[in-house]
């Protein structure tokens, strides 16, 4: 019996007509050979190209499906290739990887710089500042001062007294100007002071730095409304800083019945360590200076505070009262800024 030994019986379809099978094989073989010759000679390139294009269009969804199913197998293939990679290949790849990592870091740096500059341009545009861009090249070299050095100086049109701002707000003021660089005293420098006001209540004061690096809003009378979280902005008095630039946020307010001024702590918006590019304001427009009304209002506030100080001085004959009264007069007269 044919089936039992695995051989097909002689009467099967395939072995009934061996001649016809041979003819079929020859015919199909000849067709295939013709296709091969046409393909190899380039004669049928157009037709074959069209055929392959059509075939690929039809089968693309299946290929896409397969690429998902084939991921594990591809991983195995890659793993085998990695195992058999020679030392030179690995070394080359490692070197290439290091180069790409360095290049990637460089590009990320460039992207961040571009973003910072874009933000600075936004600041310049929103406050309509006449300014020059500069790059921070050094921070304080002395523990006695809070300064930074920028890469533009007198040669670029900068001068002592010009305010410097970062993306988040005011950074400080130029205190030394060289031909190719300038030194900027930061807001929290002990010798720094800026005419400021509380944005919500319009209470005028002086933002001064301290040796411990903190900021204090002084000369704000106890009758003024100041709350923690209020924004402190430049007042424009004195004509050095443009009006309305953000300085910081009120972090603490202390009312002492024996004092005529509030003790207001301020945390600065801008930090020297996070600014690599800055804007130096070269001139102010009329809108950026304090208006006559604001000067009058500041004078009235100072006068009211001075009247409170005089009786207190009379009563106590203290030096503190005299000093505060003198400070109030100075605020109105000079408008603050660098002391």
């Amino acid at each position, binding site marked *: 019996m044919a*089936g039992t030994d695995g051989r097909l019986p002689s009467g099967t379809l395939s072995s009934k007509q061996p001649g016809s099978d041979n003819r079929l094989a020859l015919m199909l073989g000849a067709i295939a050979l013709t296709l091969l010759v046409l393909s190899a000679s380039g004669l049928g390139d157009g037709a074959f190209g069209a055929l392959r294009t059509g075939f690929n269009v039809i089968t693309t969804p299946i290929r896409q499906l397969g690429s998902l199913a084939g991921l594990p197998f591809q991983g195995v293939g890659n793993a085998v290739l990695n195992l058999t990679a020679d030392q030179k290949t690995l070394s080359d790849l490692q070197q290439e990887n290091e180069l790409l990592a360095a290049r990637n870091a460089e590009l990320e740096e460039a992207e961040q710089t571009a973003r910072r500059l874009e933000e600075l341009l936004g600041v310049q545009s929103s406050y309509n500042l006449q300014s020059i861009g500069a790059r921070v090249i050094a921070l304080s070299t002395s523990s006695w001062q809070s300064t930074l050095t920028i890469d533009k100086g007198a040669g670029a049109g900068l001068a002592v007294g010009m305010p410097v701002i970062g993306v988040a707000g005011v950074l400080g003021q130029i205190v030394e100007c060289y031909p190719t660089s300038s030194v900027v005293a930061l807001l929290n420098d002990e010798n720094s002071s800026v005419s400021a006001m509380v944005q919500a209540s319009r209470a005028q004061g002086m933002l001064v730095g301290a040796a411990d690096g903190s900021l204090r809003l002084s000369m704000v009378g106890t009758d003024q409304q100041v709350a923690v979280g209020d924004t402190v902005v430049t007042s424009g008095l004195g004509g050095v800083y443009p009006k309305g630039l953000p300085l910081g946020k009120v972090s603490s307010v202390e009312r002492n019945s024996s004092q005529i001024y509030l003790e207001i702590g301020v945390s600065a918006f801008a930090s020297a360590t996070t600014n690599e590019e800055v804007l130096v304001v070269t001139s102010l427009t009329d809108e950026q200076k304090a208006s006559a009304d604001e000067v009058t209002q500041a004078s009235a506030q100072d006068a009211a505070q001075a009247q409170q100080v005089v009786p207190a001085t009379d009563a106590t004959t203290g030096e503190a009262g005299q000093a505060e009264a003198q400070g109030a007069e100075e605020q109105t007269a000079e408008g603050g800024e660098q002391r």
Partner: protein
Amino acid sequence: MSMDLRDSGSSGVGFAVLCVICAFAQLAISPNLNLFGGCANFALVLTACVAMSEGGSKAIITGFCAGLFFDLSTVGPMGLMCLELTVLGALVGASGRNRFAESPLALARVYALSAASVELAYQLCSVMVGHSGSLWDALVFRFLPGVFLDLVCFVPFAFFYLRQVTAGSSLGFGGKGRRGRFDTPGL
């Protein structure tokens, strides 16, 4: 006779399923099953399965169509695999033996020889017609991994055919087992 018709019908369905599986595998799995640049050839697997189980004109036509399908799915020379699989179908199928009923070792020997011949011829022809630049690369990075993958991919099909034969059923992918339709007296 009715038994014959029923078996022919199931054999036809099985053959169609086999074709669909191999076509899907050729398009979807083979490009992603890559080893040293060599790919599995499911057209070869299909032709070998049909040639070793049924043979005859069916194997020749299957070889031709599967080869053409392979050529269309690749960027190699058109008609080359078509010619090779037509010849393979004719030669392996000419013996008229159900090789799945033989010992697995003999089956593997025939298939390995077939796969090696087809892959070697394909790579040599590719070099000759200029589709492959280096003979060394064609042999080492395409021929050997290709044969290896062909063997690996044949295993599940062979296992299925062998199970059909062992179970004595002719249902499935058209394999004629020891107790298939050819055992029916009168045929």
